[in-house]
Each structure stands twice: as structure tokens, then as C-alpha cells.
């Protein structure tokens, strides 16, 4: 693997594409048979990707801690909120 492929941006991209492939697999009947279980995993994977995009691409891991914490809080709260809705409604 050459130098360009080892950059944080390229590695982040690889992880994001792998996560997308996982979601695809889950969403196309190859994964969990329980619909709510699959939906929960899809939501978790989506917000892990959101977190990665924020920390790596947006460079929030280097940023002011208040900004980073606000972003992290959003990720956790919205992910948790959607799952709570999914499982309780």
C-alpha cells in the first residue's frame, strides 16, 4: 500500500465503505431475520459513520473539546433516541 493510501483520510474512507457494505448486507436479507434487530444495527452503524466523519474528516478530534463534545453528544443522543423510538413504538 503506497503512502497516499495510508493517509488518515484514505483509511477513514475504507472503514466507511466497509461499514456501508455491512449495512447493505443487513438491508438485503442476508443478515439478521429480526426486522427491529436489523434496523437497530443499521442505525448504530450509521451513527458510527457520522462520528467517524466528524472526528476524522471534519477534524474534530483536533478541535476545541466543547465542539467535539457537542458533536459526540449529538451522535449518541440522536442514535439512542431513534433506537428508543424504534423499539418502543
Amino acid at each position, binding site marked *: 500500500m503506497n503512502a497516499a493510501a495510508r*493517509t*488518515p*483520510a*484514505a483509511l*477513514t*474512507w475504507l472503514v*466507511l*465503505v466497509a461499514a*456501508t457494505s455491512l*449495512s*447493505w448486507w*443487513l*438491508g*438485503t436479507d442476508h443478515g439478521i431475520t429480526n*426486522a427491529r434487530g*436489523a*434496523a437497530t444495527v*443499521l*442505525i448504530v*452503524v*450509521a*451513527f458510527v*459513520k*457520522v462520528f467517524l*466523519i*466528524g472526528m*476524522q*474528516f*471534519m*477534524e*474534530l478530534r*483536533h*478541535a*476545541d473539546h466543547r*465542539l467535539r463534545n*457537542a*458533536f459526540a453528544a*449529538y451522535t449518541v443522543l*440522536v442514535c439512542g*433516541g*431513534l433506537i428508543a*423510538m*424504534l423499539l418502543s*413504538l
Partner: protein
Amino acid sequence: MSRTAEELRVAPAAVPGEPGLWLFVLADMTMFAVLFGVLVELRAHQHELFVQSQAHLNRGLGALNTLLLLTGSMFVALAVGRARRGLAHADRLLIAAMGCGIAFLGVKVIEWGSKIADGITPQTNDFFSAYYMLTGIHLAHVCIGLGVLLAMLRNVRGAALKLGLLEGGGCYWHLVDLLWVVLFPLLYLMR
């Protein structure tokens, strides 16, 4: 290209862009969070309708759009990093990112076009109202994002590098990416 002391900064900023941008970014993310909630609620209360309507969506095109935005974001992140370090080819990376954005637009037009040709419009049912509304609002963000990338391209090719513009503009593009990253599974994959 002349650079001021601020422009010579090689480390990422404490606040990429400026605080006002982040107020907007977090507010926009919050608005979309409400829309995501609408989708989950729709799935809960009209599950049959949700699953049957979703079957009409083209998952492959949705996934392609996800890959286009993820790749565009990678190009933007690389471009900003290179510009910050005074390296060449930041402009080519930004052009590549714009290419991804334009391709996204094209795929959306094809998708919507095929839906409309099949007689599926925002008035068809609640799922498709939500589908057109969410993808439409997102598409508007993509169009603005293309303008932002153009402004970044002009700066990178210009005389005075503005790192704040590049970092902030880059963050706007990543926002467009991360919103789709949630929309795609909720609309196309979640059953």
C-alpha cells in the same frame, strides 16, 4: 502564492472555519434529527406501507450515492490537508470532489425521474412524501455544497490562501455527506 502567519498554520484549527458555521451545522443536524425521527415513527405506525413503498426504491442507486459522497469527502479532506501544508494538487482533489457531487445530482435526477415515470410522486403516500421531502432538502444542501467547493477551488488557485474558508467549507461538505449516511439506511435499507 503569499501566505500570512495564519495561513502558515499547518495544524488543524481549534474551530474549523468559525463558530458561526458550527452553530449552523449543529442546528442543521438537529433539524435532520427531527426528520429522521419522522421516518422511524412512520415505520412504526405504517409498517406495511413503509416496507411496500420502500420496495420501489432503487437501493443500488442509493448505495452508489453513498459511495459518491464518501469519496467526495475523502477528496475534500485530502485537499484541505494538502493546501494547509502548501502542497500541490489541492485544486485537482477539489475538482474530483465536485465531480462526485455532480454525479450525485445526476443519480438523483435519474432516480426521481424513474419514480415519476412510474407515477410515484410526493402525493402518492406518506412514505413517498417523506422520501421526496428528505431527499429534496438534502439535494438542496448538495447544490449549495457544490458552490462552496467552487469557492474553495478559487481560493486554492488564488493568491491568498484562506485556511478558515477551506476548513469551514470542507466541514460543510462533510455535513452533506454525514446527513446522507443516515438518510440512506433509514429510507432504503431499514425494514
